[in-house]
């Protein structure tokens, strides 16, 4: 990030973030809406994701099929993502073709058709998407853990939604969801690449300023009460492999403790990679890899922390060694955590984790798409400063902070523990 970053808000409330980057003749545009699965009530779970699908089903200006083909024709690529807290759409194109993406996103913010036949056709597509995910043991385990970890907060349900709601939701439900949340004052436009700021800004004003702000409802807030004891779930299914998922309630992204937990995660399971595009670092020297995989209690271990508006989960997933049990892994994991609870980690270990984070940051900063992603992503749960000060805030974490997070966050009473048991191992 440098001085060519421009941040402003249009009169209709649209936040705009522009970062010139002239390393390649490419521009990446992302638009972010402050709506995700956490804004859905029972009966409408999966609406945000389904709306995301419908945004590719045409407007009067870009009818069905035209939109995807238009981006492909220009050599670009596009995609969309629905998360707990947000929904985003992006197009990366040759720089001289970016006007297409600018027109397309401004247009579909208000003019998506939600044709009833297309809603019907997409219902079975999304059910197929969900059933494809259900083929995966780790999806089934994750869904159970998530729902057990959140009894009250709408982080309770999977982003794709519950099957019963996917069968029952109607076109009017989805269109209402779209009209409620898709408005300039509920969106962030982040663009990075080979452009001249004043020129692209003039075009953005031309396209977006005619769009009226909407009466955006407050975010759905249902505060999850403190967890008073360990929760355990199990899922049975086909296969031979036992999986273990351990999810601790974790601080929200703009909590200073988020950064301490991020470094704690680096020590335990290897460096977190929050890049959408860009390389990461392996985790074979992490504490849990040594304790679980090197000791042949597990065949793999991975961990990660999500940046969210409200407190979410710090999750470790372990593939259990065929000659061991989930209990063996839990005991070994707890022993490692206890070491960090009993004594702060050496400074040199934090310095090492920081260098890893700097390297991952450098890898990600070389991608124009990743840079545009990061700018808008940070605004979804905090502000752009969260991104620009990310490494500084990691560097400010002390060994005592890491020890405190191990003591407060990584307690058994603060976790939900899920085990996937293959049918072949159950009585």
């Amino acid at each position: 990030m440098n001085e060519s970053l421009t941040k402003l808000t249009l009169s209709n409330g649209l936040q705009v973030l522009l970062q010139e980057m002239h390393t390649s003749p490419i521009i990446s545009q992302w638009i972010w809406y402050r709506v995700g699965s956490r804004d859905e009530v029972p009966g409408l779970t999966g609406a945000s994701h389904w709306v995301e699908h419908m945004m590719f089903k045409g407007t009067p200006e870009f009818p069905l099929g035209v939109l995807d083909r238009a981006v492909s024709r220009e050599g670009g690529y596009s995609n969309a993502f629905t998360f707990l807290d947000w929904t985003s759409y992006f197009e990366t194109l040759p720089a001289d073709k970016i006007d297409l993406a600018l027109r397309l996103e401004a247009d579909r913010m208000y003019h998506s058709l939600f044709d009833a036949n297309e809603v019907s056709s997409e219902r079975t597509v999304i059910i197929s998407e969900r059933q494809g995910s259900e083929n995966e043991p780790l999806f089934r385990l994750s869904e159970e853990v998530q729902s057990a970890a959140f009894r009250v907060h709408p982080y309770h349900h999977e982003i794709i939604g519950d099957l019963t709601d996917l069968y029952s939701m109607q076109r009017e439900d989805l269109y209402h969801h779209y009209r409620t949340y898709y408005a300039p004052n509920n969106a962030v436009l982040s663009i990075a690449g080979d452009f001249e700021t004043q020129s692209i800004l003039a075009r953005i004003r031309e396209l977006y300023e005619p769009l009226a702000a909407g009466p955006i409802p407050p975010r759905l807030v249902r505060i999850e009460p403190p967890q008073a004891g360990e929760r355990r779930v199990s899922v049975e299914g086909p296969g031979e492999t036992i999986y273990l998922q351990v999810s601790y309630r974790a601080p929200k992204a703009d909590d200073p403790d988020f950064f301490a937990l991020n470094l704690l995660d680096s020590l335990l399971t290897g460096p977190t990679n929050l890049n959408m595009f860009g390389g990461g670092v392996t985790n074979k020297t992490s504490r849990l890899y040594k304790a679980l995989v090197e000791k042949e209690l597990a065949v793999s271990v991975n961990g990660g922390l999500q940046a969210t508006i409200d407190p979410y989960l710090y999750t470790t997933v372990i593939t259990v060694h065929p000659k061991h049990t989930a209990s063996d892994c839990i005991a070994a994991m707890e022993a490692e955590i206890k070491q960090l609870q009993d004594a702060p980690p050496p400074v040199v270990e934090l310095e090492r984790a920081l260098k890893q984070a700097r390297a991952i940051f450098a890898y990600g900063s070389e991608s124009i798409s990743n840079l545009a992603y990061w700018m808008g992503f940070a605004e979804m749960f905090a502000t752009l400063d969260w991104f620009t000060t990310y490494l500084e805030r990691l560097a400010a974490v002390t060994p005592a902070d890491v020890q405190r997070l191990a003591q407060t966050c990584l307690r058994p009473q603060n976790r939900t523990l899920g085990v996937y048991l293959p049918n072949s191992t159950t009585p």
Partner: protein
Amino acid sequence: MTIHSLPGPDDIVRRELPNGIVVLLRPNLSSLSVVVTGYLSAGAIFEPDDKLGLASFTALALMRGTSQRDFQQIYDGLESNGASLGIDGGTHSIGFYGHALAEDLDLLIGTLAETLRQPVFPTDQVERLRNQLLTSLAIRAQDTTEVASLAFDELVYAGHPYRRPEDGYPETIRSIRREDLIAFHEKHFGPVGMVISIVGGVGTERTLESVTRFLGDWENLNQPIQPDLPPLKPLSGTISRQVNIPGKSEADVVMGVAGPPRRSPDFLVASLGNNILGQFGMYGRIGESVREQSGLAYHASSSLSGGIGPGPWLFIAGVAPNNLEKVITLMRLEIARFISEPVTSEELADSQANYIGRLPLSLESNVGVASALLNLERYSLGLDYYQRYPDLIRAITPAEILETAQGYLHLDRLAIATAGTFDTPG
């Protein structure tokens, strides 16, 4: 990006070291990082049927310990510096990929050289790795896409090395001894046929010096050359295989034929045609029919692999088991249309624009350029290939696509593999 800013003879450095290693470079001095990627001529093509997975097992074991350092020391060197390196097996070659901050180029190339040249295959690490591989195979056996793909390969590539999975079967992985790994490494790993592509924030001379220092004196006088592939026996009719995996909510279908090798004059024509058939926009005609119009699958597309030999031309979808036959029928209808009438000029123009326009995007990153350079060497495309590429694409006609498609795709000679939970035997 103009034609002349695409990688070409003016800015790609190609050097062949005296021991045979080909080094490809394209410095990007504005970059903070560097990518090192490439391959050696030592893939699964060299392994016997009763040791399937040997090449891959050997490749994965290289970083488990060397004569200088143990597993933890090797990875500590990399991970402490935010660097990453991986070595894995393929059909024709062993591939490697690593990235690091530019200042750590020596660390990356030094670790690569050390693990390629001086592995010791520690017994405990070999057994640990074996258990990890067996677990991966147990997971593979539950993956409907993977299982359907394995079945497809067995149907299309009967009697050909491509029928064999590079990661082997549980019984072959169990049968591989540490001595087999040592012997495979001693015989097949060497500089002849090795290509290394380095792109990032390090200058040419500095990079060449590093490669020469770490790999320039590597020799293996007994290293065999790649065997010729046997001819592939064409399918004599449509053949199907259904694999039942209990407890799955969705089934996968993998159908198709063997397609043209990457070096074949047919490849680019078939590839552009395939883009129309199952890639362009939301998965081309296949996606339009199966997903957009019928709502039968989240994913339905076609793909063409190319490669050294006749890689597969695939039509794939993930679908509810009760819709499987409908989806197969729809995909067959699209194949029938594709081989009976030329693509429209509009479809062709769209895909030509897509192929030409996306080239700069694929070359944005260091890894994109490094991979592109490897392809130049692997398939003897010529250093000016990317500069010639737009003209090559523009020259393709609907008649050529039709003629090429008719040479490969035949409705009465398809392999159809499915995997999922089925009520009735296939």
